[in-house]
């Protein structure tokens, strides 16, 4: 849950993805294996070690027009391959605010 803005170096403790916000409207997006961005977490490219993470992050950073502020975030991958956010922060980014009011359009 530590803010990614405070991330000092890339450490991968498990399956991870790269997430960012889409430039024109700011919505949460995930980097896909097809080198594009998707608002659907299930389409995110999974990385499992630091080298893979660095490569995916570098590629994401290079796409400066598509999305901003990319960073690596942990996920959990179920036995069925379903991807779930790995911490509360990412859960909130995916499903919206937890305050039960005006959370979703």
């Amino acid at each position, binding site marked *: 849950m530590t803010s990614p803005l405070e991330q000092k170096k890339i450490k991968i403790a498990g399956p991870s993805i790269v997430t960012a916000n889409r430039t024109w409207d*700011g919505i949460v997006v995930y980097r896909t294996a097809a080198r594009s961005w998707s608002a659907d977490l299930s389409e995110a490219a999974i990385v499992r070690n630091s080298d893979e993470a660095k490569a995916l992050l570098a590629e994401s950073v290079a796409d400066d027009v598509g999305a901003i502020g990319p960073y690596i975030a942990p996920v959990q991958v179920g036995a069925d391959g379903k991807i779930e956010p790995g911490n509360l922060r990412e859960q909130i980014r995916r499903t919206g605010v937890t305050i039960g009011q005006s959370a979703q359009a």
Partner: protein
Amino acid sequence: MYAYDEIDRTLVNERVSEFRDQVKRRLSGELTEDEFKILRLQNGVYLQLHAYMFRVAIPYGTLATNQLRALAHVARKYDRGYGHFTTRQNIQFNWIKLAELPDALEDLAKVGIHAMQTSGNNMRNVTSDQWAGVAPGEIEDPRIWSELIRQHTTLHPEFSFLPRKFKIAITASDHDRAAIKVHDIGLRLIKNEKGETGFEVLVGGGLGRTPFIAKTIRHFVHGGDILSYIEAILRVYNQYGRRDNIYKARIKILVHELGIEKFSREVEEEWQHIRNSSLQIDDEVIEDIRSRFTYPAYEKLPYMPDELRQAAADPDFEAWRKNSVAPHKVQGYSIVTISLKPTGGPPGDATAEQMDALADLADRYSFGEIRVGHEQNLALPHVAKRDLPALWKALDKLGLATPNVNLITDIIACPGLDYCSLANARSIPIAQELTRRFANHELANLIGRLHINISGCINACGHHHVGHIGILGVEKNGEEVYQITIGGRADENAALGTLIGPGVKFDEVADVVEDIVEAYLALRERPEELFMDTVKRLGVEPFKERVYATR
């Protein structure tokens, strides 16, 4: 209300055009995010968890009804139908699209509203007492001076790239409603023995990860010298403030490390160079600004009108009146605080419908004027006492008559992890739960004045350090943990709270607050002894024992 002149209008409109071009270049890829970031920040545009966040300035907390309607329009057209009033007389929209921001800015510019310097390392919105101009006993309207400083510091080239953000607040009353002691510069408007208007100047206050209460750097600076004196402070800060470490870049760190005496000498030396320059302000300039503030044509009204006398028989009205209605400097009028803290609601939020309806009520009952306070509430500053019962009924229908102003559910809270990219823990759900726990207004009144402040990270946007009960959310091993302080306050006797013990889990926070409150009710010597007085008398130990005895 203050009437902008042609220079202001041109400035605001040119800024919109400039930003429209910058956004266009950003979206085309001509500008990188690194190049664009500083430009968007200077126009109040942050990137948060879910979207861009757009912060709009409400200088010295004063809004005309057409301006409030414009904010409602932005909430409705460009956002998700609501806005969030902050602790610094700004409003934030949480879901705005970058591509639509220039249009939103243009719509706001039509009514003289902008977002300049609501973020970035520059002079932020100059804030003031939300009761300015109407509070009994006030020296004079502090907004005149806020406006002077606003004009001087807006787009000031020397102070557009300070080591870090810089905040000024001004009060003119004995009771400080502007929290001047936790600002980079706090100004207290006073009169000297000759009857001349001037300021006690405080410097180096601030919260965040290293909180400090501001220190008095000069007991009296003549009003005509205030710009040069502020400029001298800013120059010393600009020269010596640290740019190598963001956590040590605020002026409070410089004042602390140099010591107030040395810092003061540096400022005095600089001041002597610039004091007798064009920065000296003639009375004419002040009078010109004063003339641009319009004040209502008050009627001569009775102290106790029949309408108010009759309404006093209604206990619900009386419960609201006692907490929400304050004396006005003009007989027959009142200042009405509008609670934005409904039971179970996010503190400081207002829907577009509420904003529009409140604008209508302000036109009908408050000479078309609304104020925004740092406690994240609104106020109608000029309400005739005879209109209070009708106003209350109208507010109640809008969900804006919660009778909890200054009580335990009148909570200040930052957006926290639900919105903020810096946050480590949630703030709003904690506030919501507390408003439900203490929803019984009889209990809340029994407890009396008690301010709870909640921050979702050490940056302290919820001012937890100065809450009577302060709650700070942190992260520990991937879990939200909350540290509890008591004894803080943000008024003229500002103090930092004391940590009572180890952090507690998310779902324990409301229980802990209940324990603290129960301890207070048991320990106070008489019903009139406020929570802060009991803490002052007994210290934190009895509260600590109560909270941790069973944990």
